[in-house]
């Protein structure tokens, strides 16, 4: 039956490979003898992309191909920029990318097999609370936020992983929101607790991300406009309180209102980012011709600014569109899913990825106050890459379940009719 066949995306992969290879060849010519390592990195990228795509579509034919490809394009742009500025970071990022892909496959298999989430509601709540509190107490401060764990040579950011648990817990609690008042109370306290700890850690981006995800998931699950508006009001009130209580919150808002006033101080990063984007124009200054090192934290939070500088705002807009693809595909997966729990998990994962990209993109283009979160799939960073890949693994697992269920139904119909 031919309508079961999903359209192949393999020809699209050739275009992505062409993009990756031409970018890496160009970067190779940047230095004076030709830099062969650029070709090696490009080759590894292409290898990872092909292996991942071919293996996954072979074993899981109902996989959602397009979020996989979108994530790969974003990761490719990220690695290209990192290699162009600092090859050492790009090597590490490649390792994280490979680890992330492996992790994604593990999560995917686990989520398709694991069925008894309900029993793990309270263990998950306790686990996430312990992780957050211990990172508040024992954490190391990197880039102004006290949210890092040091294990040997690695630094881990617990909030990146707790957000996945956060979505699972919310989905479990919201599965049946109308009947159980107790669960509603638990949910409110749990979310407020997580967000408060993140604000105390000075990790405002993550706090905003958690709060936004909570709001979106509550609204999607209950459809209750009044209570959702109430939560918006509580959030706004909390923001005002935080603004008055904490210096670091006030500093962020002041920088956002007028970064040029503090050009030599805290506003330097925003202004440099804006200048980088402005100098890029529509088509960019050309790969290898910009001055990305002038932007602080170019490899992580500000990667969008340097992409815009060298590739141009058109590709910047395309990157935003790639995140839009995520929203649409993720929502479709959620709509088609088996029960409300999976629908909420899928929607929560989509919200996490896209809201995070919105928070950092908005910060970089000075639409909202800058709060340090990473660009999913693009930024340098092991925790971020792994967390994004895990989120994608969960989404893919739900997509695979949907596809399998639909195929089984269709087969049943066929067996009855013919």
């Amino acid at each position, binding site marked *: 039956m031919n309508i079961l066949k999903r*359209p192949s995306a393999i020809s699209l992969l050739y275009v992505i490979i062409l993009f990756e290879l031409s970018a890496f060849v160009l970067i190779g010519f940047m230095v004076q003898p030709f830099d062969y390592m650029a070709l090696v990195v490009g080759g590894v990228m292409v290898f990872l992309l092909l292996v991942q795509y071919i293996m996954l579509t072979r074993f899981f034919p109902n996989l959602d191909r397009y979020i996989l490809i979108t994530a790969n394009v974003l990761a490719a742009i990220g690695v290209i920029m990192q290699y162009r500025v600092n090859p050492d970071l790009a090597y590490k990022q490649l390792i994280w990318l490979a680890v992330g892909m492996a992790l994604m496959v593990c999560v995917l298999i686990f989520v398709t097999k694991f069925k008894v989430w309900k029993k793990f509601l309270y263990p998950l709540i306790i686990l996430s609370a312990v992780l957050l509190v211990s990172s508040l107490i024992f954490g190391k401060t990197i880039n102004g936020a006290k949210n890092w764990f040091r294990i040997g040579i690695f630094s881990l950011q617990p909030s990146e992983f707790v957000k996945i648990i956060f979505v699972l817990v919310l989905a479990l609690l919201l599965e049946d929101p109308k009947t159980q008042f107790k669960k509603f109370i638990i949910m409110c306290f749990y979310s407020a607790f997580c967000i408060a700890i993140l604000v105390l850690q000075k990790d405002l981006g993550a706090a905003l991300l958690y709060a936004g995800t909570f709001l979106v998931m509550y609204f999607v699950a209950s459809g209750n406009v009044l209570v959702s508006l109430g939560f918006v009001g509580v959030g706004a009130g909390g923001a005002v309180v935080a603004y008055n209580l904490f210096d670091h919150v006030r500093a962020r808002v002041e920088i956002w209102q007028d970064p040029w006033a503090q050009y030599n101080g805290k506003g330097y990063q925003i202004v440099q980012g804006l200048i980088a984007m402005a100098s890029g124009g529509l088509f960019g*200054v050309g790969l290898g011709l910009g001055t990305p090192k002038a932007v602080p934290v170019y490899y992580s939070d500000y990667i969008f600014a340097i992409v815009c500088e060298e590739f141009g705002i058109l590709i910047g807009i395309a990157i935003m569109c790639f995140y839009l693809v995520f929203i649409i595909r993720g929502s479709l997966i959620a709509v*088609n899913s088996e029960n409300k729990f999976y629908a909420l998990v899928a929607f929560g994962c989509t919200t996490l990825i896209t809201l995070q990209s919105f928070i950092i993109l908005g910060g970089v283009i000075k639409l909202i106050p800058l709060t340090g979160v990473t660009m999913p799939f693009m930024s340098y960073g092991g925790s971020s890459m792994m967390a994004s890949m895990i989120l994608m693994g969960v989404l893919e697992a739900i997509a695979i379940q949907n596809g399998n269920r639909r195929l089984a139904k269709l087969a049943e119909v066929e067996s009855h*009719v013919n």
Partner: protein
Amino acid sequence: MSAQVFEAVSLMARYWFVLLIAYILLRIVQNSLDEYKIDRRMRLEGERSYVAYLKVVDADDPELIGLVYGLNEFNTIGKSIECDITIPDKSMRKKHAKLYKKGPDWILEHRGSSIVFVNGEESNGVTLLNDNDNVAFSGTMAKFIIRRQRNEHTKKA
């Protein structure tokens, strides 16, 4: 490659990159849309848990032939999109007939002046339907199939 040549190549290459990324994006959107259409069609045909089916065997519009419509316990059938079963064939009335289950029996009730044949005989109002009956709504012919229960099905097989 000297610095000037590199600069020239890089300036050219930026248009190439924009072109490639735009192509990738548009292809993803296009393929996504195609897949969505297929998904929707699959859902129409097989998603809900139906108790019976109508398989179109003859219609004015050749694309409709072979389509399987799933039936619930109560269905309205017609050309209008408001009907539970929308068969967009020219010869159909907007609201052509009702098909519902009453106890163990399936009953086909046609509306007003619309014409319904069951196994070649014109129905006068209400007709009892059996498995594998041929139903003709004006020019649209469909086969009525009752879904077997799972255990019955395995026994037969």
